[in-house]
């Protein structure tokens, strides 16, 4: 498939016995030595909400960057069955897609752009893939229960409510959230901590010289936990390595599930900008 400045090739990427349905998008001619892996949250297929990753891939190709967008195993047109656990990222899916892109597009260096659960998978893959030079992540859950023990009754009730649309919306109601927050504050002990796995992966990436950008909205619910995570990560890297972590905040939005066309435009433009600036900085570093 070809368009103005891009060409696309659907492919089934091998992952053990499974095949991950993917689309490789490449510049019509030539291109830079930097490929991009586009990852979604668990329930989205490779195109992402309202084709965000299709638009991103084609915009990247027009600027000379090949990419791959991929359905996780058990999702969309891929084979297999999936079970998502926030602490068990799909790094093997991301690594399989990355390896395929390197072979198909002939690139040596990679960037990973991801949202939500894909952010966990992106960071876990980047920690193992030494050619990954940058990771950009839109809002990603970072907290995990301190002890994953049998659920208390309040959590069971909350989960039961979340099984229904009305219950989910009720839980998102500001008044309900405020009351739940007060109740949580009265309980003893920290309920959650920043994911140790995620912190370890980020530290690994930073020590290798990789760049990490978090794309959040100023109203994103997890913004506090992001700042806490960065502070905790900072204790394990040098001040110079710490400067490679960037928080890109957009005013007036939470970017929640990318539920407006404006939020989607933010995600697409930030992804393209991230790869572009990564390429420029790599080019500057390579210039004697």
């Amino acid at each position: 498939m070809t368009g103005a400045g891009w060409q696309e090739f659907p492919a089934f990427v091998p992952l053990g016995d499974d095949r991950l349905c993917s689309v490789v998008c490449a510049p019509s001619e030539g291109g830079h030595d930097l490929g991009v892996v586009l990852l979604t949250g668990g329930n989205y297929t490779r195109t992402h909400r309202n084709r965000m990753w299709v638009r991103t891939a084609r915009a990247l190709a027009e600027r000379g960057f090949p990419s791959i967008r991929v359905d996780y195993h058990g999702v969309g047109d891929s084979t297999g069955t999936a079970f998502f656990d926030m602490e068990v990222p799909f790094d093997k899916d991301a690594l399989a897609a990355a390896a395929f892109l390197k072979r198909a597009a002939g690139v040596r260096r990679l960037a990973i752009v991801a949202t939500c659960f894909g952010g966990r998978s992106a960071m876990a893959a980047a920690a193992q893939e030494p050619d990954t030079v940058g990771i950009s992540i839109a809002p990603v859950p970072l907290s995990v229960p301190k002890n994953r023990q049998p659920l208390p009754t309040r959590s069971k009730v909350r989960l039961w409510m979340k099984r229904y649309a009305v219950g989910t919306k009720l839980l998102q109601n500001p008044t309900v959230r405020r009351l739940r927050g007060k109740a949580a504050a009265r309980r003893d002990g920290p309920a959650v901590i920043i994911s140790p796995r995620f912190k370890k992966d980020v530290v690994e990436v930073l020590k290798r010289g990789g760049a990490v950008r978090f794309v959040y909205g100023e109203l994103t619910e997890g913004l506090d936990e992001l700042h806490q995570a960065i502070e905790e990560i900072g204790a394990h890297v040098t001040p110079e390595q710490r400067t490679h972590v960037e928080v890109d905040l957009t005013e007036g939005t939470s970017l929640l599930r990318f539920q407006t066309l404006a939020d989607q435009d933010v995600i697409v433009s930030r992804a393209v900008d991230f790869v572009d600036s990564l390429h420029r900085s790599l080019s500057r570093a390579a210039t004697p």
Partner: protein
Amino acid sequence: MELDRTLLAEHASHTLDGVTERAFVFEVEGERCFGLLYRPQDDAVRSDLGWVVCHSYGLEVLNLRRSERGLARRLASLGHPVLAFHRRGYGDSSGALADSTLEWHLRDTRAAAERLAAETGTTRLGLIGGKFGGLIAGLAARDGSAERLILMNPPLTGASYFRRMIKEMALVQLSIRDEASRRSTEDMLAELERDGMVDVLGFPIYRGLYEPIKGEDLSADAGAFSGHALLFQISKRSGVGKETQAVADRLQANGATVRVEALREPPGTTFGGVAYVSTGDPMTREDVQATVVDGIADAAAGWMRETA
């Protein structure tokens, strides 16, 4: 940077459990549509009846994919080639939804049917669609080219589909702090009329599609379709709903033979909703749609055997 076209071509298809899937691109009026062809691995068992899958709208394009895929693979295992594709402006295809019209949707469906016949030699056509895709399949069948239909929760009319989509936004708006920004369904339809587009939870509805499809009614007009139809009602209820029955009545009045299958959804699932949800540990998500996907495929396979 140099593309390895041989590698890409080698990975454009794979075979699993006797069904070969091949992803490719075909041209429609200067744009390119993504297609995924399912066919039996053994050509000797191939039927001359092929199927085209019409996808839905918005988030359902993504969420219904697993149901469509399960059905496509089951039909292919019975010998029937199946082509699932993205219409122009959707998914991995080129084109812009802003330019889309109802006629465009129908022409893309016809182009997919022609491509299926050219690829596999099928001479008879069946159409599959879930929700909005069911409406498109039903409308495409009016020209008499299809002899079979599988419709899953088709809306009666285009207007009822899009009104329901907009109403779902009202639930989400409960969480918006700024009450002034909340809008009623009528406000949003007025915006669609005035501006030519309305943003419904990050999915645009364009006037160019809404206007011609809003009055289309599957219970009022089945056109020249008089073949075999399988209607799924996938819901929490046990009886057959009015909308499903109205479509079934219209098709039967046209001379079609109709089977209505009422599938019960497990608690917490919605046909067209997300597949992976938390059912216990909030840190985990499991597939709650799997039984529905299997139920659709099993019922369709039984219907195909009985009506062969």
